[in-house]
């Protein structure tokens, strides 16, 4: 099993975060494959929302590059206006959403807007929120997936595009967010859970270690008392992942 890629481990872990019967805001790439995997294993009745207005009870039969690709529209349960699916988010009808980002801090706040102190004169202008900030604001749970890198997992992000737990504690409630916040951060090295709005390392992937994660994390690492190795995907799970992404286009990109 040593040939399991970080992408495959992340997809397997992300799929475990989806519960049967849930309505989930699905992203592209790894989250999409996680949704496919969850549907085919433990969560056959999960519903996927795509922010441009698509609702699917069955994932598209072929690999997508964007959520607007024709295969994602064909045989969708519904294809309507974006505000309809965003409205479901605000109505509290979406249990979980996937998101990634350029930077995340220890409270799960994500930056996809700009690197540098001044948003209007940035060092690097990133593309922006898209629907990410809406998912982070309004979904009951946020599942964050990103490459593990000291420059990406920072003590403080330059710009909070998608709110996590702000400064921790009851920050979300104070700013007016009625529920939500990241439930998990899945990286190329490990899995974090959040306690009182603080990221805590729950597991490290095979081949990594607590020390490895610490060396590559930009905040002072908190480690769960029962930290362990991330569960390897079963042969059946790997078969499903590789069946959907046979070339390893998304799951073996080496990021």
């Amino acid at each position: 099993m040593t040939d399991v890629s970080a992408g495959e481990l992340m997809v397997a872990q992300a799929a475990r975060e989806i519960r049967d019967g849930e309505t989930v805001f699905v992203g592209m790439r790894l989250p999409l494959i996680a949704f496919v995997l969850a549907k085919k294993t433990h969560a056959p009745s999960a519903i996927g929302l795509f922010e441009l207005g698509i609702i699917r009870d069955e994932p598209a039969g072929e690999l997508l590059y964007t959520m607007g690709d024709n295969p994602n529209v064909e045989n969708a349960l519904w294809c309507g206006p974006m505000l309809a699916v965003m409205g479901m988010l605000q109505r509290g009808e979406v249990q979980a959403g996937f998101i990634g980002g350029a930077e995340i801090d220890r409270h799960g706040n994500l930056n996809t807007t700009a690197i540098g102190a001044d948003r209007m004169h940035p060092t690097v202008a990133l593309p922006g929120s898209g629907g990410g900030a809406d998912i982070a604001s309004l979904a009951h749970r946020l599942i964050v997936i990103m490459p593990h890198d000291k420059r990406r997992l920072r003590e403080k992000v330059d710009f909070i595009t998608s709110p996590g737990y702000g400064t921790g504690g009851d920050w979300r409630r104070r700013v007016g967010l009625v529920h939500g916040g990241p439930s998990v951060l899945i990286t190329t090295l490990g899995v974090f859970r959040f306690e009182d709005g603080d990221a805590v390392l729950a597991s490290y992937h095979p081949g990594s270690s607590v020390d490895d994660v610490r060396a590559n994390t930009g905040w002072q690492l908190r480690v769960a008392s029962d930290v362990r190795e991330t569960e390897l995907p079963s042969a059946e799970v790997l078969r499903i992942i590789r069946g959907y992404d046979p070339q390893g286009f998304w799951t073996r990109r080496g990021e």
Partner: protein
Amino acid sequence: MSIAIGCALEPAIPFAFAHELIRQRKRDLTLIGPISDILFDQLIGAGCVARVEAAWVGNVSAGLGHCYRRALEQGEPRRIEVRDHSNFSIGQALLAGAIGAQYIATKTLLGSDIARTNPTFKESTSPFDGSKELLVPAITPDLAVLACQVADRDGSAELQGPWGVSYEAALAAKSAIVLAEIVPAEIVVRTPNRAIVPATKVVAVVHEPGACHPSSLSRMYQRDHEFFHEYHRATRTALGFDRWIAEWVTGVPDRAAYLRKLGPRWDALDARVKFAPTTEPN
């Protein structure tokens, strides 16, 4: 002039219209849209843009938009103003514009720095229960530009596939221009409930096959994914961007010439064969 364009998100982006804006050297435009993929990047790089009101500016296939980066990081070819949105907030701003509301109150973006840095937003409390909310003011573009499969000469336009915020944008705008793949000489059956914008709002219908390449158009053609990557690689430098524009925009007189330049690559994207109906009800 403010233009809402690319409002269906990833598909049905009217690139043909944007390229004509570049050829006509339009300046000082305000661009409005949630995610208009590399269309916004191209207009910014060509110096057509003064302000962007958007949720996302980049390259959906490849990530960052090099022209957007140069404009913000270096002021090249000019400084632009950015009003950050999320997809939901810009949808609500256009909906407010569409229904003549001054603003819409929302729970999204509370705690996001977007709420703080977009100067048009106001944080408030609900008069009903005292909870915090964000007031998103209406956006009323001068013009909405939509691409669709079929439109009649009166401007009744049918967009199949995802609408994104196209409907709200068209209603919020003062007027609309429709680019259509097919403009039938005669109307066989009119299905008014399928039209994305009232014909009374449409000031021009443009018969422009292939208007959305490299984005997809449902049941007509697939996304040219590799084209987005090629654009990304070619435009890493300002000089590279200028060369790209000279080749694909100013170097061709119109869309028909652009499609001829694509050659067999364009034919390979055709989705009509796959979707050709055996019997067409209307």
